[in-house]
């Protein structure tokens, strides 16, 4: 005899974060759940709001550079670069060729370092501990290279308006070359460890699918947009600096393991981007002029003419834009940073309805957010 019993389910609110191992910093997600099924997600941000835009207005143009480091602390060089690009466009500064090459090498190295963290922590989120050690081991080598040029491991402030703060030390190019050669061999191990791992594919394929139209509507950029199959990379589409001289591919999500734009695609775009960055660095080291200035002559008191610019560049997370307004003095009137992570995160509520909580973690990890950049 079967007895009929009525089960009543009730939706409850669950707080995930701000102290949570898989929210990548101090993100707080308010979940409305019915058992394991998430019916609504409300991300709450601002736990790391450090007033960077106020600092931009309070100091001179150069004084903002260290604060840009601390926005996206995983890719400090790229943030420095985006800000310097904006200030240079505002003040009509021409950057010497050697400086541009050095910048490209640093930017791409930092992109690899940032993607390595994304790779390692994504494994951690999904319960794979080993990739984290592999990733951080390689990252330490990149940090050593950075230490040689500017002495810092994380917050570099290496870029200056008009160039970089100092020239490359002796023997740096050889070490960098050596690192790239070694790193290419290690990439195969990464793929064996995680990318083609059966459990990993099961956890990420067809999870958190973002359609191309949705990605554009929500302002997603970088690997998130490219993971959805949109070929859009500012390094090619708005070739800033000297990127038009380089030959490289833009990896996009092709839906190899599931639908186009799922978490695996976004993850794989990052892995393939690391390979492309290696190519770019190799080309840049070959093309690096032996002599030449590493910094343009920019007056100590940098006073750009009255006007405003919005300059964007491809950071490791996506489109990092700086909107600078000058009123003719040595301090910017307004500094606004358009951070890629903010727009990448705001798509989360739209795609996470009806998900399991564990899949939400997988989706959030594949977006690769940095709270310092979201909250600024």
């Amino acid at each position, binding site marked *: 005899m079967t007895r009929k019993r009525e089960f009543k389910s009730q939706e409850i*609110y669950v707080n995930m974060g*701000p*102290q*949570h*191992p898989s929210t990548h*910093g*101090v993100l707080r997600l*308010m979940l409305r759940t019915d058992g394991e099924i998430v019916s609504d997600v*409300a991300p*709450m941000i*601002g*736990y*790391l*709001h*450090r*007033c960077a835009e*106020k*600092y931009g207005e*309070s100091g001179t143009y150069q004084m903002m550079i*260290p*604060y840009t480091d*601390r926005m996206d*602390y*995983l890719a400090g060089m790229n943030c420095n670069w985006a800000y310097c690009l904006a200030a240079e466009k505002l003040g009509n500064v021409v950057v010497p060729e050697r400086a541009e090459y050095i910048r490209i090498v640093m930017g791409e190295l930092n992109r690899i370092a940032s993607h390595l*963290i994304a790779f390692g922590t994504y494994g951690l989120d999904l319960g794979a501990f080993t990739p*984290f*050690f592999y990733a*951080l*081991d390689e*990252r*330490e080598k990149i940090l050593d290279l950075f230490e040689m040029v500017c002495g810092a*491991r*994380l*917050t570099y402030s290496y870029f200056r308006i008009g160039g970089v703060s100092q020239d490359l030390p002796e023997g740096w190019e050889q070490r960098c070359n050596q690192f790239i050669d070694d790193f290419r061999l290690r990439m195969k191990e990464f793929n064996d460890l995680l990318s083609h791992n059966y459990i990993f594919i099961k956890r990420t394929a067809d999870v958190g699918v973002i359609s191309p139209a949705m990605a554009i509507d929500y302002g997603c950029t970088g690997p998130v947009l490219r993971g959805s199959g949109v070929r859009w990379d500012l390094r090619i589409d708005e070739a800033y600096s000297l990127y038009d001289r380089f030959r490289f591919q833009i990896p996009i999500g092709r839906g190899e393991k599931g639908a186009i734009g799922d978490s695996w695609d976004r993850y794989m775009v990052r892995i393939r981007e690391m390979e492309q960055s290696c190519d770019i660095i190799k080309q840049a080291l070959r093309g690096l002029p032996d002599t030449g200035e590493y910094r343009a002559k920019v007056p100590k008191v940098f006073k750009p003419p009255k006007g405003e610019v919005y300059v964007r560049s491809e950071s490791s997370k996506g489109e990092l834009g700086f909107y600078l307004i000058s009123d003719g003095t040595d301090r910017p009137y307004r500094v606004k940073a358009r951070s890629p992570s903010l727009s990448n995160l705001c798509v989360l509520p739209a795609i996470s309805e009806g998900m399991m909580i564990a899949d939400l973690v997988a989706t959030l990890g594949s977006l690769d957010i940095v*709270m*310092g950049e979201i909250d600024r």
Partner: protein
Amino acid sequence: MPILENKFEENVVFSTVDEMINWCRLSSIWPMTFGLACCAIEMMAVGAGQYDMDRFGAGAFRATPRQSDLMIVAGTVTYKMAIRIKRLYEQMPDPKYVMALGVCASAGGPYYEHGYHVLKGVDKIVPVDIYVPGCPPRPEALFDGLLKLQEKIRHQKVLRRPDDEEIAALQAQTEQYDQETRKLHPVPKEYRG
């Protein structure tokens, strides 16, 4: 204890209870997985292969405050976060220790002057045992802080009846924290965002 010397086999060590408890405590400090900002990345590097915090018995990062002994405040503390940090600290079981990693957590750091939303030092809300300067501190600096903390634990008195003055001081401290906690009232339930 000369009377007992050479009476036992090797590997038997005589010590005080205090020393033994302190030795146990300092050799397995479990930190909380709790990163705030840039310094958390250095904390991650410390946990990874090259620096390997496990060498000092402090590598077991716990995800919940209820299982951890050490709160490493790694990064800038904002007012919005300060309330949560206070609550996390209260959830930790005694004995608990706090390390302020980096200048932001120690005193506000680069965000001191115009940082309207930045707490000027985490010691304004929780008692701090070790300050590690740097922006961010190198992993070696974190180790130094950890070793200093171990040294601090080594000299703690565990089994001792506090005298009246100490009891009064402890009570005053507890009351002060209670009052502050009341001020830091929780976010109303109806508000979400």
